[in-house]
């Protein structure tokens, strides 16, 4: 093992864990993971990946912290209101674990910067709100042959699936973005704060397990839970022959332009 004494102590619960071990921990320290969105899902993902010692964590978000975010976006604190989310997130991640190099992108993820950014990472976590972003992330990851975790939450519900090249992607389940305003967003319909933590933590576990190479990923399965009745189920999904050859000309604007 190339871990120093402090790292052996810091990561001891992973190192003694069968399936991770010192080897898995070294893989984590060498890994590069991109988190798209520093909000409800991105917050727990960023905290757990930093705590786990993922060596390089990229985080992209163009927003600033708003008071209405604090009910669920647990990486941001009251004094952070008005600060760029990526700065607020980076500060907490480094406070948890100075081993981690946090790369911030205070911008939107678009088809113009997508492939350049993705090239630097091994795994991608989708923590975005809009369908345009979700379809863009899907297409970009498929084109760049990058594995990623999809996540979505609304009201008391959450859903997530993991794509690695060759398995079903988000478009295999949801072919095209829904018509604008057909689907309410969290800012319109509300979201139960703990659902963001539940789903984001599942996404973090997928990212970490992908890097370590342990267990069975959530591929070709869509995990859906209803936190109102506290029921979980997985639906098998099949890869389809979509043949994503390039970006679409347009990714619809976000369905909701309400004040956040």
């Amino acid at each position, binding site marked *: 093992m190339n871990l120093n004494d402090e790292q052996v102590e810091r990561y001891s619960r992973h190192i003694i864990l069968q399936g991770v071990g010192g080897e898995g921990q070294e893989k984590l320290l060498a890994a590069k993971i991109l988190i798209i*969105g*520093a*909000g*409800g*899902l*991105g917050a727990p993902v960023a905290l757990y990946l930093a705590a786990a010692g993922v060596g390089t964590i990229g985080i992209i*978000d163009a*927003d600033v912290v708003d008071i209405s*975010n604090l009910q669920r976006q647990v990486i941001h604190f009251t004094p952070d209101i008005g600060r760029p989310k990526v700065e607020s997130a980076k500060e907490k991640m480094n406070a948890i674990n100075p081993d981690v190099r946090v790369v911030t992108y205070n911008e939107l993820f678009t088809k113009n910067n997508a492939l350049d950014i993705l090239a630097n990472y091994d795994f991608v976590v*989708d*923590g*975005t*709100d*809009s*369908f345009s*972003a*979700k379809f863009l992330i899907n297409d970009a990851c498929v084109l760049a042959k990058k594995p990623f975790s999809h*996540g*979505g*939450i*609304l009201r008391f*519900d*959450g*859903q997530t699936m993991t794509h690695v090249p060759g398995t079903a992607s988000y478009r*295999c*389940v*949801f*072919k095209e973005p*829904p*018509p604008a305003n*057909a*689907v*309410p*967003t*969290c*800012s319109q319909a509300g*979201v139960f704060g703990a659902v*963001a933590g539940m*789903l*984001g933590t599942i996404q973090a576990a997928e990212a970490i397990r992908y890097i370590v190479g342990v267990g069975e990923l959530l591929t070709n399965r*869509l995990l*859906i839970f209803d936190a109102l009745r506290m029921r979980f*189920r997985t*639906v*098998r*999904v*099949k890869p*389809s022959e979509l043949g994503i050859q390039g970006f679409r000309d347009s990714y619809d604007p976000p*369905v909701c332009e309400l004040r*956040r």
Partner: protein
Amino acid sequence: MIIHINGEKETIEASLTVTQLLAHKQVKMPDMVSVELNGDILERQFFDTTIINDGDAVEFLYFMGGGQV
């Protein structure tokens, strides 16, 4: 006849189309649902013409945004 909707057994009248089943289940905005029938995602253009048969497994998969804002 008996079918499975979202993993749960349900008794419905015979010969409903997918569109009728969505209405029967009071899905208010069918545009926000992707339908999987017996393991395969059904193209939206076939919702009106596809009949649900006894023993079919139907999953209503909802678009879910949320997370960032």
